[in-house]
């Protein structure tokens, strides 16, 4: 594989890593978010600490972890916190700059569904549910969403169910939001972005060769286009080298 052939995972990891510039703490699951955070640590965010939902802070794993609770994340870590401390003092306490989330569906306000497809009481497909996603959304300063699939079924006008609401829905429910909600959605087509309360997700940038119309056609709502729409700089050879040689040399996630 040359630097010219960039896989989807590499592309998403590199683009997500750039968005972490100057961040201090990131709440991330295993896979693309960890790859992005690890690359950011080597490039744009040298002080970055990854906090795992399992309670691990400051991991120094000997091998690539396969889950957020992998034994290799614990041995040699700086701290392993009980779950009430992790969720109560660290996450709800406001110590997370960026939370990474995935979802089956996202709407224009950055609200997320990871519970069901169809009606909750009689679902067509029962999905895993919130896990900690509801809390990551409610308490992180901002949330990044990485979605491999950018299509009208996932980017939808109306969620089948809202598992993890952004601040606009919280406000409408009479609850004061603590974070900005989803500020970046990174996909194979480009980046959608919003600032915070009252904003909807707009197309902010596209990968080379993708048009705004391509993205709008793949989005289930009437996607607005940002005034300063840009084209995403392709992964540099330095970024790719770090990702391939230092972050995931065994290519466990860089499929």
């Amino acid at each position: 594989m040359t630097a010219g052939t960039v896989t989807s995972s590499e592309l998403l990891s590199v683009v997500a890593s750039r968005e972490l510039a100057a961040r201090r703490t990131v709440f991330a699951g295993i896979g693309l978010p960890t790859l992005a955070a690890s690359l950011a640590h080597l490039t744009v965010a040298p002080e970055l600490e990854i906090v795992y939902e399992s309670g691990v802070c400051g991991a120094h794993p000997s091998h690539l972890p396969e889950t957020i609770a992998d034994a290799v994340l614990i041995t040699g870590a700086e701290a392993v916190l009980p779950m009430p401390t992790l969720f109560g003092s660290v996450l709800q306490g406001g110590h997370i700059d960026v939370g990474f989330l995935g979802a089956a569906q996202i709407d224009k306000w950055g609200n997320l569904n990871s519970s069901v497809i169809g009606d909750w009481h009689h679902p067509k497909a029962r999905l895993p549910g919130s896990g900690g996603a509801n809390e990551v959304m409610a308490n992180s300063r901002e949330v990044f969403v990485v979605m491999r699939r950018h299509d009208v079924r996932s980017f939808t006008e109306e969620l089948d169910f809202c598992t993890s609401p952004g601040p606009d829905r919280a406000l409408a429910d009479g609850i004061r939001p603590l974070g900005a909600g989803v500020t970046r959605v990174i996909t194979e087509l480009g980046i959608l972005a919003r600032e915070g309360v009252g904003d909807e997700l707009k197309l902010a940038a596209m990968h080379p060769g993708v048009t705004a119309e391509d993205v709008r056609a793949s989005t289930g709502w009437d996607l607005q286009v940002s005034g300063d729409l840009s084209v995403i700089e392709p992964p540099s050879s330095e970024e790719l080298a770090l990702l391939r040689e230092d972050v995931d040399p065994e290519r466990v996630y860089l499929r």
Partner: protein
Amino acid sequence: METARETELDKTTTMREAIAAHVRDGDTVSLEGFTHLIPTAAGHEIIRQGRRDLTVVRMTADIVVDQMLAAGCVSKLVSSFVGNSSAGSLGELRRRVESADPEPLVFEEYSHYGMICRYLAGAQRLPFYPLRSYGGSDLPQVNTALRKVTSPYPAPDGGTEEIYVVPPVNPDVTIVHAQRADRAGNTQIWGLTGVQAEAVYAARKAVVVVEEIVEDEVVRSDPNRTAIPAHAVDAVVHCPRGAHPSFAQGYYDRDNAFYRSWSAISKDKEKLTAWLAEWVHGTRDHAEYVDKLGEEFWEGLAVGEALSLPVDYGRRL
């Protein structure tokens, strides 16, 4: 000076006796362990003893819950994540929820912190526990246990402030797996400690399953390591490798291959039934299950040594 209990109670028993004594049909049973130290062997013994109509409370409903569902033990599930970790789906759970096949499953859905706060409220005898989750979520519409309280203090902007709360959960019995305990039940856990201590304190009865029963001196050399004190424990069960396919930090690694295989097994009801017949009903106890897997298998999950450096508690000279 004599301030100590020199005659500790010995609470050790067998898994069979512990389940027979402490888990009854219709009970609310909490099984905790977040990815690490999942009390699988206890779940299997519940299946062997044919318990029915249980309400299972577990943050991450995963393979052991799918197995208990398939064995017909469970009528209600209280959980915040129903999936086979990151390795796929739970076939039986999806059949129960999506198609009421073979029968409906009552499902009470939370988020992780909602479950944690339910345990905290239960452990602390609180009528509710507040948390900054759920604002604007559809969860309160399908789970009426999620309610709001108005703060008696002004919000930062001087107005009133509302916050969601969850009710306590007080399981009839909580079962957790741990690395080691003494015979009285002082239980030490390292690595991911999850919500085990809170789940035990929230319960009317608690069963602790351990990799090792150790001498009192081992526990007492490091009292800060005791996550669950003896006064909260009713039974101690020695059951090595009882957390498989999950892992026990420092004892054996996670069986990732089994996690990956579970999606295919559980998707096919016949395969799932055959698996239960062979591995649960077909084994007398967990020791037989361990033997059946074989020494070569266990060598594949073996881990090397990484000892903690000691701390000095000091003694009066």
